[in-house]
């Protein structure tokens, strides 16, 4: 949205040309300037610049919805609001399961079972909707190389023996879990940015990142000056992209 070119914000051609002489081509550049600077750059009067500002803002601003419309939309398809974890007490506490459309974080001391939980959620996501799953693919970004495909099959076979009665079904399930091994912060960020197209093409219904902390702690030593800022920069950027993906596609992350 920020990178939207001014041309598409319905500004006149000659105004766009004039602004590009000052290297102002996107809405972001335009809105970051103060009113006086805009007057100097566009050569227009104060009131006209205010009107231009409104026009450009309208091109970037989000759409309004009332809380009531949101509620109606949610109640229109209630079943897709949560991914049940099949642990009944956990589901009760979480009000239905892992929520779709938002980020969920799982933390614990080492060895408690985070990776096992993630593997189980991957199996659950591939199940058909009638069994409480999301009937879709899973993207698993693994930074600790802790994912074991054999364990995946073991969980699937023992948990749902009636469903995974044939090898065929097991292979089908494993084919829909896409594993990416990333070992550095940069590659994790690059992978997160590239996820949008993959989600659409592979019909992904669950994204798991296991784990964010390990790769961040390896690379950023907080005792060194400046690293804290870089680290929080990386984390917030990743978080905002993941939030956007979760909301846009209504999938749990």
């Amino acid at each position, binding site marked *: 949205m920020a990178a939207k070119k001014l041309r598409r914000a319905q500004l006149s051609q000659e105004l766009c040309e004039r602004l590009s002489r000052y290297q102002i081509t996107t809405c972001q550049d335009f809105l970051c300037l103060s009113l006086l600077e805009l007057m100097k750059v566009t050569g227009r009067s104060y009131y006209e610049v205010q009107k231009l500002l409104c026009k450009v803002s309208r091109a970037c601003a*989000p759409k309004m919805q009332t809380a009531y419309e949101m509620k109606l939309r949610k109640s229109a398809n209630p079943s897709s609001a949560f991914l049940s974890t099949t642990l009944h007490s956990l589901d009760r506490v979480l009000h239905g399961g892992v929520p779709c459309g938002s980020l969920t974080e799982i933390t614990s001391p080492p060895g408690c079972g985070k990776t096992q939980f993630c593997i189980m959620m991957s199996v659950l996501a591939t199940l058909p909707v009638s069994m409480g799953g999301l009937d879709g693919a899973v993207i698993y970004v693994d930074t600790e190389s802790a994912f074991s495909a054999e364990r995946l099959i073991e969980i699937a076979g023992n948990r749902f023996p009636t469903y995974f009665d044939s090898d065929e079904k097991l292979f089908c399930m494993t084919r829909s879990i896409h594993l990416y091994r990333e070992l550095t912060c940069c590659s994790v960020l690059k992978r997160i940015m590239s996820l949008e197209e993959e989600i659409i093409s592979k019909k992904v219904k669950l994204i798991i990142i296991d784990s964010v902390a390990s790769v961040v702690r390896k690379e950023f030593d907080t005792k060194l000056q400046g690293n804290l800022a870089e680290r929080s920069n990386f984390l917030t950027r990743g978080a*905002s992209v993941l939030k956007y993906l979760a909301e846009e596609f209504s999938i749990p992350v």
Partner: protein
Amino acid sequence: MQREVGALPLAPALRARLAAAGFQTAQELLDTGPCGLSKEIGISKEEALEALQVVRQECHGDAARAAGGSGATRKCTALELLEEEQTQGFIITFCSALDNILGGGVQLTKITEICGAPGVGKTQLCMQLAVDVQIPECFGGVAGEAVFIDTEGSFMVDRVVDIAAACVQHCHLIAEAQQEEDHQKALETFSLESVLSHIYYFRCRDYIELLAQVYLLPEFLSEHSKVRLVVIDGIAFPFRHDFEDLSLRTRLLNGLAQQLIIIANDHKSAVVLTNQMTTRIGQSQSTLVPALGESWGHAATVRLILHWDSSQRLATLYKSPSQKESTIAYHITSHGFRDVQPPAVTPDAGGAEGNPRKRPRREEEKQ
């Protein structure tokens, strides 16, 4: 009328030409007329007419101000301000201890900032306020609508439904206890659907969308004149990443603060912002301070810091022009923001004015 040409809000090129032609005051321009102006400076007649209209508008505004009318600069005595402040409403939070330290609740025409660590209840308080602003006047509310600008995506509609349902039920109980006619009439329009449809929600993904939305807010507020609360949930989040140039960030934040102050004053609404906490590494220890730096600290009039103390949530009034600094404890229940212990009440719901802060004991028994 003696306004200098250089101070008029015209295009810079035009101003340069006028100065080169020797015009010094606005009066000279008005005396010349559009045709004369266009001939002297070499601009078209339409442009000259436009410029003169701008000048006339400015001078008219100046004259009105000089005559003591209601121009852009407000001049009034402290007595008038006192009367205004006394009749001004507050937005209650349903937690009487918090309302007490705030001096009655969240004040209109002021910017209130709520800072806190993640998970302490900032978004819950914002959602509670978005519902509470709609309480009808006969129950002690301001009967307004709410604009909710969300940058973090933590707005959960189901939770707002819970909070709104509890609030509506509370008002129903008060009306039953008091049996006054205007209560019944107000209750007809105060239902769950109406509460939800008067919360206007905007989801801004980055700081450009946030800036654009704030530029468009005055227009939106003049269309929806009943809005009394603007909540920006998460003002720190979009500004904390992707900013190599910190001076640009400070400038944008200051511009944002200015616009919000103008919006708060012009439309008589409260502006509530939530901020994150960041760690400041000192000599020997590190402390949690509100994010976005020292200069942002000047933007808000009232600052509330929410924090934990073992397992109890506390709220500290950190900065306020009229109340003293104090800390209270609060609770977040399934109904929303509440006191830690409900205050002891008599069966007839706290006196004739129907104070909605006191929850009648009957309500607890029904639960």
